[in-house]
């Protein structure tokens, strides 16, 4: 194709497409991405399109007034579902972000530090890891009277961090021993720059996959906390809380439970498919 130069330029392999590009070519990833985007849009714009107000009573409790009937207080279930996503979404996303940042920092520093650093950091990490995620959150939440959104985000993030750290350390270990990292050290680069410029950019594929997976867990975790009655605003609609509130009427008005269950499930499937797609790309990636 290129005929402008006299000596034919040697054929250069096409540029390595980014992980995201490669993932886009995967059906699994695009479907997951599609589902997630739709649900996020649903959660964001739901309140604007809802047929009734969030706390508006539209009929007797557990009746079939409206599209999906009413809940235990007589609120419209569809409206509650449309309102109930925002809190979960915000807490799950920010919690995941916090967990990823903390976890990556811990893992990479441990791997790059090596020796004693590695031992001490990872053993402390193991201590936190020993708590089941939900237990750790419950422990704190029972001590606090009314959690704010920030407390929930911090709890979700902190409970993710040690799990992310284990993975990040594993991935980083394979990179810190490579010659280009050693070359950077031989040049006398600052340690922080070696981590940020040399190590981290080579970890993005497995970390992206982990982020997707963690987002799934976050949604489930925030949903569970809601079910157990822990949410930033007990009066506001919340998918997890809806399941808890309406479970007594499961036999008479199942939609009050099933509708939030379905949206949570679809959301989890979407993010999980995304994570899976990225993981597959990452696996095939650098050979």
């Amino acid at each position, binding site marked *: 194709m290129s005929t402008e130069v006299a000596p034919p330029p040697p*054929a250069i392999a096409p540029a*390595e497409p980014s992980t995201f590009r490669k993932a886009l070519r995967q059906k699994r990833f695009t479907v997951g991405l599609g589902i997630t985007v739709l649900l996020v849009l649903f959660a964001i714009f739901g309140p604007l399109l809802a047929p009734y107000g969030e706390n508006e009573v539209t009929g007797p409790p557990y009746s079939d007034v409206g599209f999906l009937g009413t809940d235990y207080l007589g609120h419209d279930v569809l409206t509650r579902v449309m309102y109930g996503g925002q809190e979960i979404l915000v807490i799950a996303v920010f919690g995941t972000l916090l967990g990823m940042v903390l976890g990556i920092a811990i893992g990479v520093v441990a791997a790059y530090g090596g020796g004693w650093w590695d031992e001490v950091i990872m053993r402390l990490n193991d201590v936190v890891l020993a708590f089941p995620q939900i237990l750790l959150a419950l422990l704190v939440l029972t001590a606090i009277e009314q959690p704010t959104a920030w407390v929930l985000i911090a709890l979700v993030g902190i409970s993710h961090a040690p799990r992310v750290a284990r993975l990040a350390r594993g991935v980083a270990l394979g990179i810190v021993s490579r*010659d280009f990292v*050693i070359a950077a*050290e031989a*040049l*006398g680069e600052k340690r922080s720059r070696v981590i940020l410029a040399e190590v981290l950019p*080579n970890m993005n594929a497995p970390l992206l996959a982990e982020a997707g997976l963690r987002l799934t867990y976050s949604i489930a975790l925030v949903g569970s906390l809601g079910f157990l009655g822990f949410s930033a605003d007990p009066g506001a609609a919340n998918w997890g809380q809806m399941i808890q509130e309406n479970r007594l009427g499961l036999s008479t008005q199942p939609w009050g439970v099933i509708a939030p269950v379905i949206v949570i499930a679809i959301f989890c499937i979407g993010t999980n498919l995304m994570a899976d797609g990225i993981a597959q790309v990452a696996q095939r990636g650098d050979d």
Partner: protein
Amino acid sequence: MTVTESSPKGGLVVSDLGVDLTGKDIDVVDDIDLVLKPGEVVGLVGESGSGKTTVGTSLLNYSRAGAFISSGKVLLEGRDVLGMEWQEVRKIRGEEIAYVPQDPASALNPAIRIGKQIVELLQLRNIGTSESRLQGARDGLAEVGLPSDDEFLSRYAHQLSGGQVQRVALAMAFLPKPKVLVLDEPTTGLDVTTQAMVLETMAELCRTHGVSALYVTHDLAVVANIADRVAVMYAGQIVELGPRDAMFRNPAHPYTRALLDSIPHLSQARALTGIPGRTPAPGARPSGCRFHDRCAFVVDACKESVPELRPVAAEHDVRCIRAEEIGTWDISRGTVPDADPDRPREVILSVDHLNVFYGSKQVVYDVSFDLAKAEVVALVGESGSGKTTISRSVGGLHKDWTGTITFDGDELSKSARQRDAVNRKRLQYIFQNPYLSLNPRLTIEQIVKRPMELFGIAKGKEATDRVVDLLDQVALGPRMLKYQASRLSGGERQRVAIARALAAEPDVLICDEITSALDVSVQGSIVALLEGLRQQRGISMLFVTHNLALVRSIAARVEILQAGKVVEAGSVVTVMETPREEYTRNLLSKSPRID
């Protein structure tokens, strides 16, 4: 297809073999005609990407995933291996056509003892009775010169050395008494002495059993020592085929000649040259003669059609339309005087009483040597001799050492981090494997620019201009600036690594086996590049290698290392012409040579 009838007993006839990529109309190898006579070793030589391994495995009717055998015949005593049912192919593999892989360590099961593996093989092939098989395994091991006692039989693969593993693989290949043997770079990665032993064993077995062997390799020097006939492959085609002596005395194809020009000799220093350009990948190969875009003798007719493989002498075929016109060739072409041993030396780096440890284990014992300005000192030894360890200690990459390293009057600290910026800048390290030493996420510009920014040599636009300059010096165009390293070939990556080292404007380069991961023609051009840098910039180099022939062409002084100690040192001419130590003599005599 009348050739097929005359297929000699035991030999193998390959005709018109082609392998294509699945789903694309792209050939990996094409138009391969080859005859293996009984008891004959044919060397199949080519650089990476030439399709030599593909041809080798095709003889067993095997193609790797993503490729398929699209045409041709492989006739074993008149039977076409490629046309057989899979059950039959399965029986023939190993039993009549055996395969020895490049890395036998990964071919042996790490969880099964050696003896058991050989007995299992005999069981599978239905050789002997259950009582005689253990004895059979012992005999097989004895034949390749390995111990055959119970202790050895009960070892696992990881308890053997590389050479031993390779000889176990040879024993296993020979036990079913195959008629044809395909060896895929079986000695790559072995030390020269081990390599010589494996090659001897192989040649001996082939002779005594009348086995024909296809020896696939990138190393022309090895082929010169063991093959009866040589086939040279380029871009999926055999470009020259002939008896060994004719091939090395009178190579007729420009590619063969260029390859031979890029190989260093043991007997005399040479000005090595590379082949311009890069080996085309399948699908990107030029039309007409596939070598025409890199050939020094190209004419318009070369671009028009693919030349036929045609005879130029008895049994000597060439795929070149100008074979008769390009003149004669001489093996001593390109020789230059050896480095002058009496040149006055101005020492810039000296290493005194260096002892290096890994934990509590000492690996280098009391090594002292020095390096003068604009001089190349080679550290030579087999694997485990400590040569890389020494270079890493000097470069500050390994800090567990004692002794003194003095650089231009300054005593150097143990690790690069503790050294001051000036010393770090003046002493640059180039790594063995260019596939690992460049960050795949950064562009070439970022990689080469970094040392300039770090050492405050240049910034911004000025730095970019210098990067272009440097790339030009290492024979890479400015087009490369925005590429990521993953898009470059091995040779190009190593040039970038050299450019990165030069960006710091060093006085000493530490080159750790920098050509051993590269093809010979690429090695030739890298060595030419380094020699140019040494002369123009007066850079000194500490050159770590296991290749003695390369030392002759590049270095002025040499330190021969054995098990962490210097056993012999001196000027290259003295050491290589009149070696004093048995170890050095042994290394020299075991090194494969083409001169």
